[in-house]
């Protein structure tokens, strides 16, 4: 009896898993579609790219009965676009490095600042704590154009205009990290803190030895999300940086026209790589977080 029941439930389980798997696969295909498209199209020659997509840019004339269709495989597979990016026109690589120069300090800075502050907001009691946090949330939700003009004036007074710090500093102090980590730290049970205090730990030790290790998953998530957010930042560099040679890659990619489509595809693939790498690296911590959840 038991064995039959066991077999039935395992069959049911298998069916369930199969359904889950197909569903996930379908979703993945939908999500990945543009990426796949971009990768294959980056191997097109410049001419082919312009030809295929000329219907979108309104360079064409008159009533054509032509319709667009997806072109997955280029007629002629060539790596000329990559060649251009790496060797012929090094300015794209320069822009790539600019992106890194801007994004990396922001990620590191935010992790440091946010973990400290989130610990305070979630575990330590001080007056006006919740009201201040409330203000944090509200100001975070404002679009940047609102604070842009006073920001500009302030940065000018501080003499930071035109330098990378004009973008990096506000990025480090963005309240998103505090918000994310505080929600996460709130769900760490109080017993840990009590236990630590009984053992006579000071606040910093509480932070460093008890709370921080538990947050590795959340910190990894934070790093990934902050990286993505700032990697894609377009408006702030445009306004606060004066020199075009300091522009990050995101600006170029938001401005492509039909002439440079092939190049933009290749740049786009290169653009995607760091984020994917960071995700892969941080994924270990995410998984660790999941595995540790069983152990108290």
């Amino acid at each position, binding site marked *: 009896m038991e064995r039959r029941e066991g077999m039935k439930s395992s069959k049911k389980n298998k069916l369930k898993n199969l359904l889950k798997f197909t569903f996930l696969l379908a979703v993945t295909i939908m999500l990945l579609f543009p990426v796949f498209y971009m990768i294959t199209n980056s191997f097109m020659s410049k001419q082919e790219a*312009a*030809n295929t997509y*000329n219907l979108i840019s*309104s*360079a*064409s*004339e*008159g*009533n*054509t009965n032509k319709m667009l269709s997806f072109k997955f495989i280029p007629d002629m597979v060539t790596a000329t676009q990559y060649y251009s990016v790496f060797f012929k026109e090094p300015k794209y690589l320069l822009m790539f490095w600019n992106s890194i120069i801007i994004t990396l300090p922001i990620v590191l800075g935010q992790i440091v600042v946010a973990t400290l502050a989130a610990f305070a907001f979630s575990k330590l009691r*001080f*007056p*006006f704590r919740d009201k201040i946090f409330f203000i944090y949330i509200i100001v975070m939700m404002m679009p940047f154009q609102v604070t842009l*003009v006073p920001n*500009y*004036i302030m940065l*000018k*007074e*501080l*003499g930071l205009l035109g330098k990378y710090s004009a973008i990096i500093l506000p990025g480090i102090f963005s309240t998103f990290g505090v918000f994310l980590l505080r929600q996460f730290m709130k769900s760490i049970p109080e017993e840990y803190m009590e236990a630590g205090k009984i053992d006579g730990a000071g606040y910093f030790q509480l932070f460093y030895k008890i709370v921080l290790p538990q947050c590795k998953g959340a910190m990894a998530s934070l790093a990934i999300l902050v990286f993505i957010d700032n990697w894609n930042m377009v408006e702030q560099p445009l*306004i606060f940086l004066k020199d075009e040679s300091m522009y990050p890659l995101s600006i170029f990619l938001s401005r492509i026209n039909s002439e440079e489509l092939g190049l933009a595809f290749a740049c786009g693939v290169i653009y995607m790589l760091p984020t994917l790498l960071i995700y892969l690296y941080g994924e270990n911590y995410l998984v660790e977080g999941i595995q540790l959840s069983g152990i108290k």
Partner: protein
Amino acid sequence: MKYKYKSLFIFLLLISLISISSCNANKKVEKSETNRKEITIYILCSKVASRYSFALGSYDGVQVNPVYFDDNLEKLQNRLNLELMVGEGPDVVCTTDDRTTDIVKSVYKLASSNTLIDLNPFMNADKKYKEADYNKIIMNSGIYNAKRFFIPRLYAVPALITTKEKLDVNDINISGNRWSWEDFLNTCKNFMITRKDKRQALIFDYEGKLLIDLIANSKTQFIDYSSKVTKFNTRDFISLLKDYKDYIYPVTMTDTESNENALLADDNLAVMRNIQETGDPLTYMALDGYLGMMDGNANQDQKNSEAYILPSYGNGDIYGLPREMFGITSRCKYKQAAYDFIQNLVKSTNINIGHSPIAGVAVYKPLFNLSLEAAAGKVPLTDIGMHPNRALNGNEKIFFGIVPEVSDFRMNDETVNEMITSSVDKYIKGSITAEQAANEIDRKAKLFLNE
């Protein structure tokens, strides 16, 4: 209880210390008062080509500092916009430069944004100002909501330019100095049928502005900025669009098309392609240009040119487009000096500088009359600021010869123009109907005016 207030106090103290220290970090020592009053103006062209070179420099205790942008329009626009919003930027703003380039994208929005000051008090206090000396109608274009924000220096009237020979060769007749709308359409229709060479176009649409000019030049004012009324969704406008697509557009060629290479395989477009290949500029007959604006188009036979005022939809009157409107920003420290500077520019007898092209006809009447006399040969050309080695060519003679009295002005707004051209592009390609195009334009313009 006690610790709460203590903590609050410490918190506030820390925050204020940090902010004060950062403010202190920049305590600039104010420059010692210069003896000169300084005025800044942004100029699009390079130093060499600037048409205001006669007015820049210092005089009468006023130092005018130009900032040159070497024809980099985007850089100038970005910087101007940002700085105006922050409360900085130049003291004097000019809305157009370099003949047809609009530096300020939307004159209307600039006027209503409170970044410019009202010039009426200055004009009222100006003892040398005589209202009769200025073209009143064009001067009205600088007024919004009963305040005067701009003083225009020049104005232009859209026109078509050609030579008598080209008209005769193609059997085209223009009665008087202007086509009526019906005659114009008929000529377009006939031209399509009778043209000897399929490669010919009737009108060469320089910079693609023909449609915008036709709309601005029509009897009905389709968009009124001060009263925020749009009339694009009317039968009037729709029928204008239909006329444009059916009759006018097929016989028009733009400068981009004449340069297109073999990317487009469609046979219908072979017409345009071959023009470039034959390299013979007189193969096609082209009419284009602005009265009051000299166009350096090498395809015109300049000596025998004739100009005809652009036809008006609905057979309206003659409308002027203000050019080079000057305003003073609110950050200007020496407003009176800036006002004097502008008046000097407007009243100076330099309609044209050196070799640069004429950008319009003077608003200031004495200068206007002087230009007429120079065109007729009664006074030397150097009197109106032209280079001694330069001679008035045929176009310019015509321009000054038949510059008409305008009955009203029309304002140009780049944002609205973009809305119009994008919708009409789709209409011409056939993806939407004229009604839909008019609807789109009206809807977008309404959003724009109400923002």
